């Protein structure tokens, strides 16, 4: 399937070096001109809105009118109110757990396809990624079916006799949210790791064996560190979008598994407090980026240790 991260657009090494002559300058101009519609679109509908969100987070709203005086009131609410703190922490913990579990669970699969996939590598990749291209909403729904009181899990366990009455703890809590999210993101995490593993020069592993490493050691000392960029990519792809997930907590989270997205959405619905919604969004982004950054650093340190 199409590769998502890892977009390499370098030219062949035989091309002449950069210059300032008129010809190359016009190539640059043509290149910029060509990419400009897309770039402008992204600037207008992605970058600009984000800036506006940040701006809004410093204003206040009184029913339908926006008061543009600079204020930190929204941030005080977002960071100070226990309910929002609670939501934020819960969302971060869930996204952290989901991304760590997903990456760990997906790595062996990516490794299997890359090293043992043989001629059918692409087929394996396709099989693995097809589920993740289907409707996210439908996938969450299917977990509702599985984990429900009268759901597949319960009726299945009942019929085998492992339990004698249906479990109520399967659905409508954070565990359900975590399981559902891991399932949703599992295939997404495989791709970047796979791409990274494909780039690992097999002869390096053979060299490690030649120098005395057994299979486990060569994996820890050569393959794992070299595939780290892919792991980090996968981690970020899962963690950051997950923290703001709306559908899963709403459908399977119940009261225990509520996440910050619910609160954000409320501000844009009946709550009608855009500035607060903006502040909550910014806070979430900043905090999740910080934590993600920390985890990435930790991963890099860990790998350095295994050398």
């Amino acid at each position, binding site marked *: 399937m199409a590769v998502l991260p890892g977009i390499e657009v370098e030219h062949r090494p035989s091309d*002449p*070096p*950069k*210059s*300032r*002559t008129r*010809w*190359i300058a016009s190539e640059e101009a043509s290149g910029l001109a060509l990419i400009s519609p897309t770039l402008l679109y992204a600037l207008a509908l992605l970058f600009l809105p984000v800036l506006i969100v940040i701006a809004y987070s410093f204003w206040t709203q009184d029913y339908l009118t926006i008061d543009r005086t600079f204020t930190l009131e929204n941030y005080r609410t977002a960071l100070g109110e226990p309910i929002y703190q609670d939501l934020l922490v819960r969302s971060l913990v869930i996204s952290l757990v989901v991304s760590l579990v997903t990456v760990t669970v997906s790595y062996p699969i990516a490794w299997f396809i890359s090293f043992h996939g043989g001629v059918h590598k692409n087929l394996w990749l396709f099989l693995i990624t097809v589920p993740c291209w289907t409707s996210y909403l439908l996938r969450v729904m299917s977990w509702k079916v599985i984990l429900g009181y009268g759901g597949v899990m319960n009726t299945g366990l009942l019929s085998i006799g492992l339990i004698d009455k249906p479990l109520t703890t399967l659905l409508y809590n954070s565990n359900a949210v975590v399981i559902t999210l891991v399932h949703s993101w599992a295939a997404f995490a495989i791709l970047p790791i796979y791409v990274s593993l494909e780039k690992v020069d097999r002869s390096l592993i053979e060299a490690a064996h030649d120098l005395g490493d057994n299979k486990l050691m060569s994996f820890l000392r050569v393959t794992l560190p070299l595939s780290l960029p892919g792991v980090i990519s996968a981690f970020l792809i899962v963690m950051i979008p997950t923290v703001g997930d709306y559908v899963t907590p709403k459908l399977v989270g119940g009261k225990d598994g509520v996440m910050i997205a619910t609160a954000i959405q409320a501000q844009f619905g009946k709550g009608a407090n855009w500035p607060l919604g903006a502040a909550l969004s910014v806070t979430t982004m900043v905090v999740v980026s910080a934590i993600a950054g920390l985890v990435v650093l930790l991963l890099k340190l860990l790998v350095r240790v295994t050398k």
Partner: protein
Amino acid sequence: MPDKPMIAIEGVNKFYGIYKALDNVSLDIAAGEFFSLLGPSGCGKTTLLRSIAGFDTPTEGDIRIDGQSVIGVPPNHRPTNMVFQNYAIFPHLNVEENVAYGLKRLKLDATEERRRVAAALEQVRLGHLGKRRAHELSGGQRQRVALARALVMRPKVLLLDEPLSALDKKLREEMQVELRTLQRAVGITFILVTHDQYEALALSDRIAVMFGGRIAQVATPKEIYQRPNTRQVADFLGGMNFMKARVTNETATRISVETPRFGGVTVDKPLGFIARNGAATIGIRPERLRVLWDDARSDFEVAGKVVDRHYFGEITHLIVDIPGLEQPLSVSETNNFGADDIPVGDTVRLAYDPDALVAVAD
């Protein structure tokens, strides 16, 4: 150069920023010549070829094809056609459609077009593969499709950018013969870019050797090989033994030198020769030294101890230490007479032809 040359390159400079890819290149190529641009990677030969084709524009200078300047003329309006290094076969068209590609714009009637395509394919011996696609062809076959596609356009000049470099040795040698035969049959000017000296020597009517964006020497293969102008050219086309000799006399075209061990000789003066401290560099090719067996004698011989021996199947390289010479001599001898058995440490006597000695400008 009789008549007007087919290609006249005058004072061409090409800059990429501060990097000078072509330095004051001037060259004349005659109609019907098989001309090679030879040199190591980065010497500017491909840049020059692409400038003739129209894919690169010289910063300064003029290029004239059949009398007409082509500076500013885009590649699709030039009377040249190119065979690209990776062949550039259109993957979405089959062989026939590829060859017919350039003919489409001529709006020929269908029978005529088909005839020309068939003739072109016959010429490169691919007549039976017309319906195949690129990924169903071998490297050698793709190369021939590229040739047919260019030749069917009947260009005045055919440009070939290292067309054989991707093929393995045996196939390359076969294709070299085919190229030469093809050029003679078709009769148009071929300009070949290559880094393989043997290829250039085997195929060309004349060769231009290039280093660092400059032309070092333009001559026939024999002249370039036997009378290289400079040390660089000599080294690039096979090995050469060099020694310093004392200049005893110098005229406009000849110099007389006193060599260590090889006696006094008078040789042609190379272009741009300047005696430094009254010394000249003299060279002799390894294969021009012949081992003298048993009692054989020669008027011109040197003797020394074999310090190393390398076997290459057809020939053996002997490294012979000659007292009085700074560097040991490299001798290339056929194994017909047992050169591969000469023990290291033995003394050998080597005969040479004084005509084989050349002076090179450093």
